[in-house]
């Protein structure tokens, strides 16, 4: 059984530890936390992929090899990475 550690002051104000089983509310919160964490990781992975693509496009722009579509993609990517679009 999964337990949580709860620390409360005793009558003398000293920290007193007790192990408590998770409540249904705790479990629901855990599930929400895990889902939120997954969403953050997915968003971060998207950002990392956009950064990597932006670097690729920047290289093609520097060497003069970029097509018009790639130029448009580079502008759009950089706006998204900057939080503008």
């Amino acid at each position, binding site marked *: 059984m*999964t*337990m*949580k*550690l*709860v*620390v*409360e*002051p005793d009558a003398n*104000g000293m*920290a007193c*530890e007790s*192990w408590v089983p*998770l409540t249904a509310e*705790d479990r629901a*919160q*855990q599930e929400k*936390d*895990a889902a*939120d*964490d997954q969403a*953050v*990781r997915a*968003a*971060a*992975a998207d*950002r*990392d992929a956009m950064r990597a693509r932006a670097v690729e496009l920047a290289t093609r722009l520097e060497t003069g090899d970029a097509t018009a579509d790639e130029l448009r993609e580079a502008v759009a990517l950089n706006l998204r*990475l*900057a*939080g503008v679009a």
Partner: protein
Amino acid sequence: MSGSWATGWATGDVVTAAEFAKGVGCIYDTTLGVGAASIDVTGIVGSYAHLLIVAYVRSDTAASATGLLTRFNGDTGANYTGAATSTATSVTSGSSTIGGIPAATATSGLFGGYGILVPNYASTVGDKPAVVFGTSFDTGSSNLQNAGNQVLVNGVWRNTSAITRVTLSPAAGSFVIGSRLSIYAMGS
């Protein structure tokens, strides 16, 4: 003769209670002997100036990493705001995640280390800023900040209540054996 922190100390000084209280002391410290889904420290008195929360933690969830959540006074609402230096343009509203920690498939023996400084934690005048600094790796070569984990965070808890309770938990799974949480009270 009474010494003081401001003037320095000499052999034979008498340390008054008022002067002693200006120092730093540990008000809670535990190292887990069994796994725990969270560590919930309640009844934190408001007679000190600042809090420093120190965490050395790892999760047992089946992944290389998961988030580390810090909540104050049991508030699970969207009342936290943070910005990480690793993602300078990213401001996370409503998340109490302060960073990432290694989990079950991370390299064995790796733990995340975090310090959370909460200035003026007992104030009832304004919100509670928190300065988070930490380090966390999942393979020994891949910094978790690259996987969406905030490692240096400027955060704030949008509440004017004095902090009397601190809860740390992994976003998924439980803290493993050997994880440690300490809370230091600073000044008076």
